[in-house]
């Protein structure tokens, strides 16, 4: 069913302000977006909303838990402290265990969504939400109100409908133990005898690196050829494990010397004082599949000013550098000065591969289903 036409008829959206703010009617503008007929709802047109931000304001932001609580380091604490200091508001992190599905479920049940936005939206999330939810979970953000948006590199955009604003990125790549194996340089190399039963990657159905690698093979071998490649991979006794953690556990325990992981691996290795020879990174065919993360406003969001202040803050070069340092992911703001360790140890592939929202829409489920049928029971 076409949700947009449905929404177009639903007319205006009334946003109720927080205490002290008056309720603001926001006409559903036909002007704000180029969309496929009909306007997008949401607060994208409200940059001109009057009303001051109260001192005791609270901004709730949804994200995934490792962004605010990870055993090594995470940017959550720094962002909260710095943002609160500068904007005189309280920042609340919301990290439900089901991540975005939690909000999808609230949306399904017709319940309001507390956070103004979600940080860490990926292209595949947008596709899932689009395919399975009635109505819009996310709203478009008008980037003209974000002063730092103009410095976001064009190549980082993945949502033509403008809901997700690029925030940070990393690249999927091969991490291998240089002490025990030679570097695999191409996809074909992975099929060679010397890597037989030496490679582990995670389940594309349920984990990010696995999915990125699968999409990468689809880009490389086309829709018609990727299953053959996977068939050959499975013949070479590649292990498809549950999650990236399981894969990395086997790498750490020296059970497998080649794993699909991220190209930033050596940043961590140097930080922990590990043998860098064990942590070598290969960009297959000099490529890396981009792991893009964005922030997107929830359609229920009501405090545009505060949300935009936060988004702009996240895009500031200083914050971007802080995220690069603590999240070990690359910045999207091209003015960002990279942290030393990141600049030295993170590997930038010569060519970035990425399927955007449009390419994934309508294809992702089929690709995964076909992959599943190819791999299950194959031995």
């Amino acid at each position, binding site marked *: 069913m076409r949700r947009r036409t449905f929404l177009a008829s639903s007319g205006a959206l009334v946003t109720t302000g927080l205490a002290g703010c008056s309720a603001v009617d926001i006409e559903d503008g036909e002007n704000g977006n180029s969309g496929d007929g009909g306007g997008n709802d949401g607060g994208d047109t409200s940059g001109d909303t009057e009303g001051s931000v109260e001192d005791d304001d609270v901004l709730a932001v949804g994200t995934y838990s490792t962004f605010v*609580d990870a055993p090594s380091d995470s940017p959550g604490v720094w962002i909260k402290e710095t943002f609160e200091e500068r904007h005189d508001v309280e920042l609340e992190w919301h990290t439900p265990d089901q991540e975005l599905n939690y909000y999808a*479920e*609230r949306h399904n049940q017709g319940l309001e969504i507390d956070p103004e936005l979600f940080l860490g939206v990926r292209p595949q999330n947008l596709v899932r939400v689009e395919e399975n*939810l009635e109505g819009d979970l996310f709203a478009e953000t008008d980037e003209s109100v974000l002063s730092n948006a103009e410095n976001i590199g064009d190549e980082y955009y993945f949502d033509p409908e403008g809901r997700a604003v690029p925030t940070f990125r990393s690249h999927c790549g091969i991490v291998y133990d240089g002490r025990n194996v030679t570097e695999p340089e191409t996809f074909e190399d992975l099929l060679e005898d010397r890597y037989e039963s030496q490679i582990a990657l995670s389940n594309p159905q*349920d984990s990010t690196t696995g999915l990125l690698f699968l999409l990468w093979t689809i880009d490389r071998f086309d829709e018609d050829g990727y299953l053959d490649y996977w068939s050959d991979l499975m013949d070479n006794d590649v292990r498809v494990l*549950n999650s990236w953690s399981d894969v990395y556990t*086997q790498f750490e*325990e020296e059970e497998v010397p080649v794993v699909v992981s991220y190209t930033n691996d050596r940043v961590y290795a140097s930080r922990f004082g590990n043998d860098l020879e064990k942590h070598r990174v290969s960009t297959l065919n000099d490529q890396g599949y981009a792991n893009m993360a964005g922030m997107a406003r929830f359609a229920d969001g009501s405090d545009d000013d505060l949300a935009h202040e936060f988004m702009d803050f996240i895009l500031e070069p200083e914050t971007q550098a802080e995220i690069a340092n603590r999240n070990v992911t690359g910045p999207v703001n091209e003015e960002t000065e990279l942290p030393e360790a990141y600049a030295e140890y993170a590997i930038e592939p010569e060519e970035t591969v990425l399927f955007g929202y449009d390419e994934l829409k309508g294809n992702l489920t089929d690709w995964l289903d076909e992959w599943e049928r190819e791999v299950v*029971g194959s031995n």
Partner: protein
Amino acid sequence: MVETETTAETEGCGEMTNTNEPSDPGPPAADAVDPAADVAGGGGSDRPTADPPADADADGFTRRVQNRLERRAIAVFGVATTLVLVVLFYYPVATVFLESVYVRGTLTLSVFLEILRDPLYFGDFARLFRGGSPLAVARDLLSADRSIGVVGFTAYQAALSTLLSVALGLPAAYLLARYEFRGRRTLRALTILPFVMPSIMVAIGFVATFGQNGTVNAVLGALGLGSVDLLPSLTVILLAHAFYNAPLVARVTTAAWESVDASAIETARSLGASPFRAFRDVVAPQLYPAVLMGGALAFVFTFGTFPIVLALGGFQLATVEVFVYRLIQDLNYAEGAALAIVELVISLGILYGYLRYEATHVVRSRGIRPLPRRPLSPPSLSVRELLPRLGLALYGVVAVFVFVAPVLSMLYASVDGANGLTLEHYRFLLERQETAAAFQVRPWDAVRNSLIFAAGALVLSLPMGVVIAVLTTRRYRGRKLVDATLMAPLAVSGIVVGIGLLRGPVFGIEIGGWRISVAGAVAIVAAHAVSCYPFVVRTVAPGLESVDRTLIESARALGASRVRALVDVELPLIWPGVVAGAAFAFAISMGEFSSTVILATGTDQFTMPVAIERFRGRRLGPATAMGVVLLVVTSVSFVVIDRLGGESVGI
């Protein structure tokens, strides 16, 4: 509930229909009088036997009121238990399951049909549902390139896992129930540990033990025996399943073995039976139900297995739960729910089969004098003394690799650093305690929460389980079906329960204009109790069923209420079962993860398994250090309870 209340009334009259009375030869009845007399004495009444109604009439008014209250107690507990189950389990799960038949506003069975016809799930069987000839399907299934589908494979590996669990569990039960040795009780207490181990810890331990550079290969290499390539393989999955489930089989069998009345064997022996014959005819029939129960539970758990299969085996060996998980994760609720129902029906079918067996194989027991234990060091060097001990020694070697080595490798991982042994990961835990922000997990808080929640879950699940056991051991049509349905918390897919909990208690249930939501510590305890109580039911019910009815009837005839008879007569007789259930309840709660994270309203309610998950990263150290904390806290709890409780507790 109406039905159970009426049965309570009919039972109050002491009328029993013994349609299911087993034909098995029970133990000799010669000693029946003694415990009965004791119990009657303990009941506080010296009155000789009389007709039940006359007895009730003769009692004083206060006694009648008290009796009425006590009689209602079972019903009241029953209602409370039902309420908890409905709010935290049946209603939430139903909201998800409904999506399989109610798709885009219409009722349909098409989703099920699609699944049944899908060769991915059902292999060659799928053709049966597409109208293929059964003969042709059977022929294909017998051929070399048969395909049994994901469901078939799941059942296959669950069956093998069950067999292995029983094979590795029984010798342990034999050792713990029949031999006396230093550290026996500590060892028995520690057999609970696998229940609290998060699968990520087991995966780390198993890779270190059975991997290509693992302990097993190191030992084999040192002995000049070459090496084995176990990872990834079905074998290592089966071993991991046995790691979890063999202790389960061992614990329930040990409890049953300790309940075997020594006098029955003595009688058999005095009548000329050989030791083997006495074992076969007297002891073994009392163990079968426990072994089968352990087996049935092991099947259910390994049928619904998820993370460990993909962590050690890989996607080629994916089970049904893997697909349920990803379908729900992808928001494809209709297919996910339908597949989860297929999974549930198979699991409950197996449990139902076991319950039918249990009902027809009740062994009446009348005494609680356990068999004396033999010393582990052989008293003489005869073949008969040496042979079983030699067998146990061989078993010990296997057990060291399957159960001990994985735990030890976890310990090792927690002190392994970039430059040799280190305590930095434990220092990390201390630092986190000091510096963590409000939204980050703190190790000590997790320890405290785990202990409080486990104690709460124990206190709640014990009466829940006992009441359900009482209600399902009554005689009424279809009671085994009810019993099996009440075991559903063991068998329903975890992610379905998770989404259901969100929709139900967390988001709130609308009642008369109010949206009532249940979350936070109390909800966590109650949800833990829901996961734990089936263990209490399963360890208590067979005992209840086996208690000689005439004992209860005597107690009731002498004026005891149903509850009083339960507390004073039945529970003491089946105490090992109650304690076994309590131990499971405590441990299940300590290891619980999924409903805790969903119901917690803040990180200050997180438990140790959640902390372990949060501390997982590139290095194994932080998570394994937290894992060791979990193991130590659990071990200390169990050993302390065992010491405080004396021999009769026997956890």
